[in-house]
């Protein structure tokens, strides 16, 4: 057994020989049992990273280790829900779940899958092609959870769900993770919906890792300071600073205590993410512990 769900070492992916680098020298480690948010602007490489982890495509540089093996070795123990929720449109909901059972005969948990579908009051005889986007998301999540995976990879899972379904499905997903210790990795660009649900963060920008590690540690490593525009932020690493009239607002990584006349506050997840996105040149910060140090 390993306590590492995903480990990337100098991971890179280029789609065509001279094409754009979708991922570039990404190095991080994700321990098992975490709920990790993969955040970044469009085109940052979120979907590429998830597809690589799911073994659907192979890296052009570096290595990726999933649950102690290669992505294809881990395929039985992971479930992946792609952004476009590919399902067979001509099958009914019931037939889709039966297909899930037949493709995963040893591990299939019909009760879990049916509970996810039942929460949406879906007719088992309805064809997939007649369902709305949100209903299709629900069926795709039912298939993924029914597989009882050790690692669940979700690409924009909640994008087309209404607020009620979103809350209910996120609750089910996390309850399942709580009970079985499933590692959940989900991408989103709606940061607010991840706050409170995730305990790990992977922030991507232009194919590179900007921030990675436990969310609490990342937040604690940053301080939001306000003070006079003439103030000196001395030894601290400034991620972003803005001046409005005589006032300066900055997000810094403090080195030593932030003294003087500065007002300080801990940033929210949204403030942390937005500041980094507005400042692409800010240095990366990795706080994920190496495997030896993990419990």
């Amino acid at each position: 057994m390993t306590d590492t769900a995903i480990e990337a070492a100098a991971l890179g992916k280029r789609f065509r020989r001279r094409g754009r680098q979708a991922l570039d020298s990404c190095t991080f480690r994700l321990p098992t049992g975490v709920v990790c948010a993969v955040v970044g602007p469009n085109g940052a490489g979120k979907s590429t990273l998830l597809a690589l982890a799911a073994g659907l495509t192979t890296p052009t540089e570096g290595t990726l280790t999933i649950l102690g093996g290669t992505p294809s070795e881990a395929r039985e123990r992971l479930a992946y829900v792609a952004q476009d929720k590919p399902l067979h449109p001509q099958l009914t909901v019931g037939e889709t779940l039966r297909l899930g059972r037949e493709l995963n005969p040893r591990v299939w948990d019909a009760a879990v899958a049916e509970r996810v579908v039942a929460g949406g009051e879906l007719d088992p005889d309805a064809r997939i092609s007649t369902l709305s986007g949100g209903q299709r998301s629900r069926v795709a999540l039912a298939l993924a959870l029914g597989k009882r995976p050790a690692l669940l990879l979700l690409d924009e899972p909640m994008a087309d769900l209404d607020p009620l379904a979103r809350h209910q499905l996120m609750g089910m997903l996390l309850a399942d993770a709580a009970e079985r210790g499933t590692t959940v990795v989900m991408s989103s660009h709606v940061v607010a919906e991840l706050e409170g649900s995730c305990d790990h963060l992977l922030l991507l920008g232009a194919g590179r890792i900007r921030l990675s590690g436990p969310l609490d540690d990342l937040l604690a490593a940053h301080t939001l300071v306000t003070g006079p525009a003439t103030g000196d932020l001395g030894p601290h690493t400034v991620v972003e600073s803005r001046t409005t009239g005589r006032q300066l607002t900055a997000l810094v990584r403090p080195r030593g205590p932030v003294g003087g006349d500065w007002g300080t506050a801990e940033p929210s997840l949204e403030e942390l993410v937005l500041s980094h996105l507005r400042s692409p040149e800010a240095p990366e910060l990795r706080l994920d512990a190496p495997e030896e140090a993990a419990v």
Partner: protein
Amino acid sequence: MVEYRIDRRSGVATYVQIVQQTKQALRLGLLQPGDKLPTAREVVEATAINPNTVLKAYRELEREGLVEARRGLGTFVRRSLGAAPADSPLRAELVAWAERARGAGLEREDVAALFTAVLDEQFTEHQGHQEHEGDRA
């Protein structure tokens, strides 16, 4: 059984909200020794918050000696908190005082400000502890 209400916009860390709401329930006698706290699964399913956050809150309550985890059974209340259950004479006095304040023409905010000021004056040490909790939020 308590039900937790998580306010994501409050600026108070989620685990601190669970700790505070549990303590509030203990103070008011809504939770009593021997009562079972909801399982992490139940809390997570109802609130869609991170399971590790619930466990962190329960560990904090356990560290303070308020609850104990019994393997395979759940988390149970060990002792209650404070000397002011919902039906105590102190509460009745406070109700009477609030009625007088209202009779004297004070608004809700005036009363809250007055009450907070007196709390700060009388419980400086306790206040420091609260601030410490806030720091980690």
